[in-house]
């Protein structure tokens, strides 16, 4: 269980041993920047963390990169001068180095690919690399940015094509348009700040997944759960991170995570059908913390999603709690038809664990169930136990979702305040109310605190290559 013990390489293949090989690839200019950032954060104590590699066609940019392991792509194609914004060249460069890349990817269980899709290397090479990663049997996640609108139609179209390509080749794509990021970073943020936030966000996302998989926990969430939650989720995958401290840390962290701009201020969460919640806490983590955090997330979800959860204990997290929420929305398109041949082939090739076969049918059968579910079939929150439609007149209009909460449901129901049956002599309302007020003022403080930690680093933007 000790993650610092790296002597027994062979054991790394075993998921039960919690030694999952994570490879983080920064592809192209933007990707390398993100990898840099991650390297920077990991340096002091987590040298045994994810394996970082910067991949670029531009040797000059690559040489200024902080990541120790560098990969010069397509030296014969580009002469180390970059792809010149042409994805065809990026792709050609990657194809040239196919064997070296395959060697690099061999034996990885989880591959993160970070890239900006507007450029040549990021846009051209990353789908190819993703394909190789999947062929090598790894769960492949891409974190990508789309260029700013003002960068022009050509670049945007290029990026969109690359994104479509990438969606076909990876298990999940977290895609963030730079325009949106810039807004989230706040109007006064400098370009540098905004990019740094983006890199931070990616770094934090990778790190928490790594932590979740490697640190011992009260409730295990292992690689297979992650795989099950993310495999073949092309349609929409987003994640949010929140951190809390003090007595109310669970609520604060959950709030911050849900308000994370990447979760579309909660809208996407409400529509998600798979949610993965990962908590990292110190030795003083209580069950109440876990319960509070998970139920906060669950409350925001509207479609009765499948919730995976896990916790990890990290000595550094005394009195602190970090919450990672990954939500994905079922596929709506016909992507499954295209990708179906791939997973089976890939799974056969990889199959690093025994459990894998057991999860396979489930993973395979999930998407069809989801796509068959008509959109109008909304799950009514079961805990409320009301036979009537509890949204009343707002049943058929667009819901008012604000920071992940559907405000169309009556406030007293969301707060779980009993009004009492009008026909019995009801409860003393004064008492009820003061109760409600207390809850509220508390949650209000939380949100203030959460706002702070949100600003601290979870808005984001990244350079296009």
């Amino acid at each position: 269980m000790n993650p610092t013990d790296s002597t027994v390489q062979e054991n790394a293949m075993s998921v039960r041993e919690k030694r999952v090989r994570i490879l983080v690839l920064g592809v192209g200019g933007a990707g390398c920047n993100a990898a840099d950032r991650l390297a920077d954060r990991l340096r002091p104590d987590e040298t045994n963390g994810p394996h970082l590699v910067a991949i670029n066609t531009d040797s000059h940019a690559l040489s200024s990169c902080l990541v120790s392991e560098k990969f010069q792509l397509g030296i014969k194609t580009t002469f180390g001068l970059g792809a010149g914004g042409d994805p065809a060249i990026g792709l050609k460069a990657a194809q040239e180095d196919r064997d070296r890349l395959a060697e690099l990817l061999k034996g990885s269980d989880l591959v993160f690919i970070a890239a900006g899709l507007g450029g040549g290397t990021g846009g051209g090479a990353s789908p190819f690399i993703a394909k190789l990663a999947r062929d090598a049997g790894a769960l492949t996640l891409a974190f990508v940015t789309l260029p700013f609108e003002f960068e022009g139609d050509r670049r945007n179209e290029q990026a969109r094509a690359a994104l479509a390509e990438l969606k076909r080749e990876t298990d999940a794509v977290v895609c963030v348009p730079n325009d949106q990021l810039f807004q989230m970073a706040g109007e006064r943020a400098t370009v540098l700040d905004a990019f740094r936030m983006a890199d931070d966000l990616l770094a934090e996302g990778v790190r928490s997944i790594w932590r979740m998989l490697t640190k011992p926990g009260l409730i295990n969430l292992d690689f297979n759960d992650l795989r099950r939650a993310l495999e073949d989720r092309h349609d929409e995958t987003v994640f949010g991170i929140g951190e809390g401290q003090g007595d109310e840390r669970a609520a604060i962290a959950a709030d911050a995570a849900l308000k994370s701009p990447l979760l579309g201020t909660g809208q996407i969460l409400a529509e998600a059908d798979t949610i993965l919640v990962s908590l990292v806490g110190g030795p003083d983590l209580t069950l109440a913390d876990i319960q509070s955090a998970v139920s906060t997330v669950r409350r925001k979800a509207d479609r009765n999603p499948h919730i995976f959860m896990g916790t990890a204990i990290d000595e550094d997290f005394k009195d602190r709690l970090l919450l990672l929420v990954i939500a994905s929305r079922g596929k709506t398109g016909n992507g499954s038809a295209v990708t179906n041949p791939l997973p089976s082939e890939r799974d056969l090739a990889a199959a690093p664990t025994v459990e894998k076969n057991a999860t396979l049918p489930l993973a395979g059968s999930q998407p069809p169930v989801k796509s068959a579910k008509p959109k109008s079939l909304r799950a009514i929150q079961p805990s409320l136990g009301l036979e009537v439609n509890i949204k009343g007149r707002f049943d058929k209009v667009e819901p008012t979702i604000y920071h992940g909460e559907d405000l169309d449901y009556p406030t007293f129901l969301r707060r779980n305040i009993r009004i009492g049956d009008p026909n019995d002599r009801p409860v003393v309302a004064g008492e009820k109310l003061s109760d409600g007020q207390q809850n509220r003022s508390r949650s209000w403080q939380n949100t203030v605190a959460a706002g702070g930690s949100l600003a601290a680093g979870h808005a984001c933007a990244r350079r296009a290559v």
Partner: protein
Amino acid sequence: MSRSRIVVGLEVGTSKVCTVIGEQRDDNAVAVIGVGECPSRGIRKAEVVDLDTAIQCVHQSVQAAEESAGVEIRTVFAGVSGSHVRSFNSRGMVPVMGENGEITDADVDAVIRNAMAVNVPLENFEIHTLCHDYNVDGQDGVQKPQGMRAMRLQADVHVIHGVESRAQNIVKCVQSVPPLIVNSMVFNGYAASLAVLTEEQTQLGAMVIDMGGGTTNFTVHVRGAVRHSGVIAVGGDHIANDIAIGLKLPLSRAERLKVEHGSVQLDESMKGRAIAPSGELRIGTSVVFQDQLCTIMRLRVEETLQLVKQELDDSGWGAFIGAGVFLTGGCAHIRGIKELAAEIFGLPVQIGTAQTVMGLTTPLQRPEYAAPIGIMLEGVKRLGPLPKRQSLWEMLRNIARPT
């Protein structure tokens, strides 16, 4: 012969469609000369859900206004709101291109375009682009840069934008009533603040919360400019809906109870007091206790105001609200809301009514008219001052010597 111009503000709201006809006089003073109102149908959360019935409401409202003013109207300014309306602040910068380094109108246009360049999504359109102030070669707080000499011009703007297709539903709804034509759109929240605040209050810092039937619109003014604005799609309808669900009543009855017996301040005397809407027999209907009613209402109103407060605090302007908070819209009539808002915001709270117009004042001094009057006032602003009157002699001279 005194000349004037008719300007019309039309708010297609969730609870009422209100038409305000204003007259811009020779001296550029504005008077309201007619108001028409019709209860809305086919509108939810400030957006059209049933076009045909909404059109009928617009028609009735316009007709009533025309009758009361004795004029016929053609061009109107229409209010827009709804959850799709968003805002952001942005800064633009351009090098000055004018002759001798003097800033021209073209430079000012360019800097504002530059400020908006990044942020507005493709399907959205700008409803308002409000300039805070300019920065001329590092000198902050310039109000009117035209004619100044500089190398570089910066502008801070507040842009309110919305999804074009959704706003177009309102335009379509209004233009389906011949011969009406929509000149342009005005954000209801901004309009309410225009009607309510005096120049001094906008300088001191003020927040206007326009709580209508379907949405709560807010606008923050500090140092004479809009710093933040937005929409939370929760309003009076939600309160009635909560009551209907919580007390298991039909909506119409819930609505009447809200208006007649509702309050957001609870006191001991309400406990166990059975209430019923006026004119309704109590026999056979289930009993409603006032404390239950008011608890439900308070929770909802408190929550909504707290969300607005959070928006204010997140914007960073919370400490600059010197003149306090102004509540407008139908929800401002809720008993005890002023005290509740004061408690939440920790600021002086007033019920806002239109301050800045002449005319039929007394009946218009109601918070729910702030938005439509404001729309009309914004219309006056956009049309600009009346052209200067020319004497017959000047006219002749101009014809003789065309310039």
